[in-house]
């Protein structure tokens, strides 16, 4: 064993000796940095974290977090995370996945961990490409994406991760992006505080196979107009001078100029992430470039009992009723019968 830090935890305590193996310039470095900064601030002892992943560049993550980790198999992280949390609800479980790992091969497990509301924090690194296998299109790649496997462009409609999470009625849905460590840290903390499953889409850049894929929304030039930061109680405003707002036209959101000559601020929708109407989450989740700005932050948090507490709860109830069963009670039940030495002697009279 290695000695455990007696000082308050710092980022350094979560850095492993393994040298990090992502391509220079990969967005994953910033996400790693953000999570290593988050962990020390959660008041959780280092040994009580479990970082679990599938397979992909993103899924190499656990090797670089100095705590307990499990780099499992492609797409199956949610199952392993569920088992880990069910067996030991005291652990703070973090699941790292990618757009291919989580939404292609792993879509079903993601669906079920979300609907079961297992208290796991899920980070989906969305670079809209298969990085580890050298650049095939992924289920989040826009129609027409040309890759090695789609030389004439992809033809299938991409999955919107947030709409998918809403379809699974996830209790916590958020989005952040790799070039803003501060924002990532705040979202990660909120996810940790949420009692239930937390789904976070992280816009991530793959410099090698899909460079600048998100620049249309978060580059220096575009971010002021294209990013919409969600803050409870604040109107949905964007633009350098926050003079663009989101207003409802019937059941369709529209972007309008606000203030002088434009719409009145009162017409602009005000954000509320606590138990909002699913229609409102749908509205935010579907907002997309180029028509509308891209929401960043926490779309919704819903309060619902978690799966692992319910499972443990039933065990407590059962024990309250029947007492915690011993091996003897298990085996030597009432419908047992004994055969004594005498009876054991064969060939006695027939039963009449």
């Amino acid at each position: 064993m290695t000695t455990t830090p007696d000082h308050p935890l710092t980022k350094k305590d979560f850095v492993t000796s393994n040298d990090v193996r992502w391509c220079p310039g990969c967005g994953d470095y910033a996400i790693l940095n953000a999570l290593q900064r988050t962990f020390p601030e959660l008041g959780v002892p280092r040994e009580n974290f479990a970082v679990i992943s599938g397979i992909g560049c993103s899924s190499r993550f656990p090797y670089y977090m100095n705590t307990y980790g499990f780099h499992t198999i492609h797409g199956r992280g949610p199952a392993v995370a569920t088992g880990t949390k069910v067996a030991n609800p005291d652990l703070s479980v973090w699941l790292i996945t990618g757009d291919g790992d989580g939404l292609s091969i792993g879509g079903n497990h993601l669906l079920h961990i979300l609907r079961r509301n297992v208290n796991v924090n899920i980070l989906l690194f969305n670079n809209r490409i298969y990085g580890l296998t050298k650049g095939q299109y992924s289920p989040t790649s826009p129609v027409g994406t040309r890759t090695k496997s789609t030389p004439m462009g992809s033809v299938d409609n991409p999955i919107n991760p947030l709409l998918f999470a809403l379809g699974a009625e996830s209790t916590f849905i958020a989005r952040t992006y790799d070039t803003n460590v501060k924002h990532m840290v705040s979202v990660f903390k909120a996810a940790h505080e949420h009692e239930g499953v937390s789904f976070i889409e992280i816009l991530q850049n793959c410099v090698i196979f899909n460079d600048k894929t998100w620049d249309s929304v978060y580059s220096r030039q575009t971010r002021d107009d294209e990013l919409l930061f969600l803050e409870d109680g604040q109107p949905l405003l964007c633009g350098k001078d926050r003079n663009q707002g989101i207003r409802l036209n019937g059941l369709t959101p529209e972007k309008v100029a606000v203030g002088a000559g434009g719409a009145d601020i009162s017409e602009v929708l005000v954000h509320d992430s606590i138990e909002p109407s699913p229609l409102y989450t749908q509205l935010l989740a579907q907002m997309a470039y180029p028509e509308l700005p891209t929401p960043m932050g926490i779309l919704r948090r819903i309060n619902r009992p978690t799966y692992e507490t319910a499972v443990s709860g039933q065990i407590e109830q059962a024990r309250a009723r029947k007492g915690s069963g011993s091996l003897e009670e298990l085996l030597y039940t009432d419908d047992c019968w004994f055969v004594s030495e005498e009876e054991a002697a064969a060939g006695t009279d027939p039963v009449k």
Partner: protein
Amino acid sequence: MEKEKQSGFEERRSVVVRFAGDSGDGMQTVGERFTDSSVVVPNAIATFPDFPAEIRAPAGTIPGVSAFQVHFGSREILTPGDEPDALVAMNPAALKVHLEDLTQGGLLVVNSGAFTPENLRMAGYEENPLEDPGLAGKYELVPIDITELTRETLKESGLKTRDKLRCKNFFALGFSYWVYGRPLDPTIRFVREKWGAELPEVAEANVQVLKAGYFFGETSEIHRNRYMVTKAAVRPGRYRKISGNEALVLGLIAGAKQVGKELVYSGYPITPASSILEMASSYKHFGIKTVQAEDEIAAIGIALGASFAGAIGVTGTSGPGMCLKSEFLGLAASSELPLVVCNIQRGGPSTGLPTKTEQSDLLQALFGRHGESPLPIVAAMSPSDCFSAAYEATRIALTYTTPVILLSDLYLANGAEPWRLPERDQFQGFEVPKPNTDGPYRPFERHPETLARAQALPGTPGFEHRLGGLEKNDAGEVSYDRENHAHMTRQRAAKIAGIAKSYAPLIINGEPEGDVLVLSWGGTYGAVTSSVRSLQAEGFQVSSIHLRHLNPLPDDLAETLRRFKRVLVPELNTGQLAMLVRARYLVDALPLNKMQGRPFRVSEIREAILNLIPS
């Protein structure tokens, strides 16, 4: 079989009775009751239910037929029996399906009241078989209008006719009790306990009809022969009737409790493994956590996650599900975590014969993964033995920090027999390896004897580490080094091979040498042992060995094989164990195979053995 009149009873060593009727006729209940009242005699006993295919087919049709077979005797009973000595057929369809199995001259009780034109048509009978004189000639035919007699018996009761007729099965049961001199009280007690409270009149109606059936035998002239099976020379001890899947669950729990581990069972329903998940879910107060996963992949993933967190994860399924678990088995083998994976085999390939038994997944258990990933394999040999097999699988998983495959089959899972319970102190003790506390934790450092790695559990300060499916070195770091891959491949293989050192010596049924050795595994135990014992009694130089462990094979097997002129390997597949034995020992092991979705008959194995004996 010696017959000898004695107080109106003909004595029999053992009797096989099969109750057959429509799914709605309650044949399973009748079988269960008959079993319980035989158990108290006590007789040695074994039973097997024969359900219709999954979905409940229309009443009166062939696919709708449900049956239950009871084999009881005054000597050791190892199988539910081959041909029944008696058949109780509640309708034409039941007769159609099961008559072919009845022994020549066997007792044939039929509910003549159910032989209506409509029912005959549904069973595909041109004309009424009961009117065929041949039938009475071939069997001891006893036609009783059970329908009518039941209605008659209950004419006073306030029940609806529909409910009255529901009691038919108890008339048949009562009559059978008379024929075989069984006590009525256990059944009467059961009925009153079960329905007495909510439905008293139903309970009483059943009791009335049960007695009516019994007295009908006594009073009516219709049939004179009664058969008696004297008490069996069963070993003294504490007994309990148990089915295979039930025993398996208890074995897992016992194994976990032995080392104070929490048990997390995660499964996805599939015939015939569903009842494991169901029974495990009913043991919540024993601290068992169960998860019904979204599929078999998730089921094993959840179990593996639980093992990673410190519990003992277990998952169970049947063939199709085993295919889906194979990738995760590779991860479990590579990350070396304890895990028990139960495969309750059924007829394949693909969806195959979901309600029939087979042993055709052995090679899948050995080789159904990519790469070199040997795993221990344990197999159960009888319904009650599923307990010991499950306990052994758990022992190996936890002692060697490895996934283990536990093989059972539909025939064992659904079969039931009295189980002589082990006493608390009879369980083989074992220990979970502890990580070494001096120096930094090396996750793949191995125990000197067992070569097991010691697992450090999340939540333990100072042992933080990462696991995964990429090749790693002893320190647990990812490594693509050539030599290291060769080294780790050897270590993993050596660890598994070494498990054989922990086996008890092989038990040879018979002499340690001779003309023929019958080598078997799994559900064929009863049929093989019975046939071999019978031949031994007739003076043949035949012995048998039944394998508990399919991988690694026992170290003392090689030696034993050489001491026999011929080796016969009976399997419900096309020769899977036979192939392993041939490859490993270069012995010309002869396969005896059966692919009919049903167990071997003792006679089939006897015959095959006799063919090998030099005369």
